[in-house]
């Protein structure tokens, strides 16, 4: 099991009801982690509409979970 912090923003945060949580997961990569958390929180957003970041840097879905890392799922942005 790998322990990581997950941050939620915008509609993901509303759906999860929390801004962040610490998870212990056996997900092989970030894609699998999103699948697990999507099932847990009932996220409506498909993975291909999101980007993913690790420790405040954009990452790829195939990246492995790193112990102690901070993971964020990035919904479509709407700044400006």
């Amino acid at each position: 099991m790998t322990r990581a912090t997950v941050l939620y923003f915008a509609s993901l945060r509303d759906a999860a009801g929390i801004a962040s949580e610490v998870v212990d997961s056996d997900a092989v990569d970030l894609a699998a982690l999103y699948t697990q958390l999507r099932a847990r929180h009932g996220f409506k957003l498909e993975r291909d509409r999101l980007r993913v970041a690790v420790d405040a840097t954009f990452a790829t879905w195939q990246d492995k979970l790193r112990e102690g890392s901070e993971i964020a799922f990035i919904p479509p942005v709407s700044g400006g």
Partner: protein
Amino acid sequence: MDAARFQLAATPFDVATLRAGLLDPGVGAYASFEGWVRQHNDGRPVRGLRYEAYAALAATEGERILQQALQEFDILDARCTHRTGDLVVGELAVWVGVTAAHRAPAFAACRFVIDEVKARVPIWKHERYRGGQTTWLP
């Protein structure tokens, strides 16, 4: 080190001050863009909105966009400040300022920066409508 070129502002910020930071005797052209909160969006009457950011990532991604602009266009400087928190109709949401010797690259880089900021920087808009409904955009 200078202040970061890309900034998030949790409170109203002053464009005149940001513009003054770009003054330089080599500048011939200053192009700027501002986004203001409109009273309507897609036909719905907007009462106000809230911008939420993933601040750490927004800072690095915003900075990356401005560095790209400096590399790809013949400009002297490029800066951007984006509000977070609650805004009412008419308030300033985002400012982009670009300086150059000549106007063509100043305009092109200014357009590039706002387009990229809207597409890439992790900031989300939560609109409040008359009647009480709210929604995350897009």
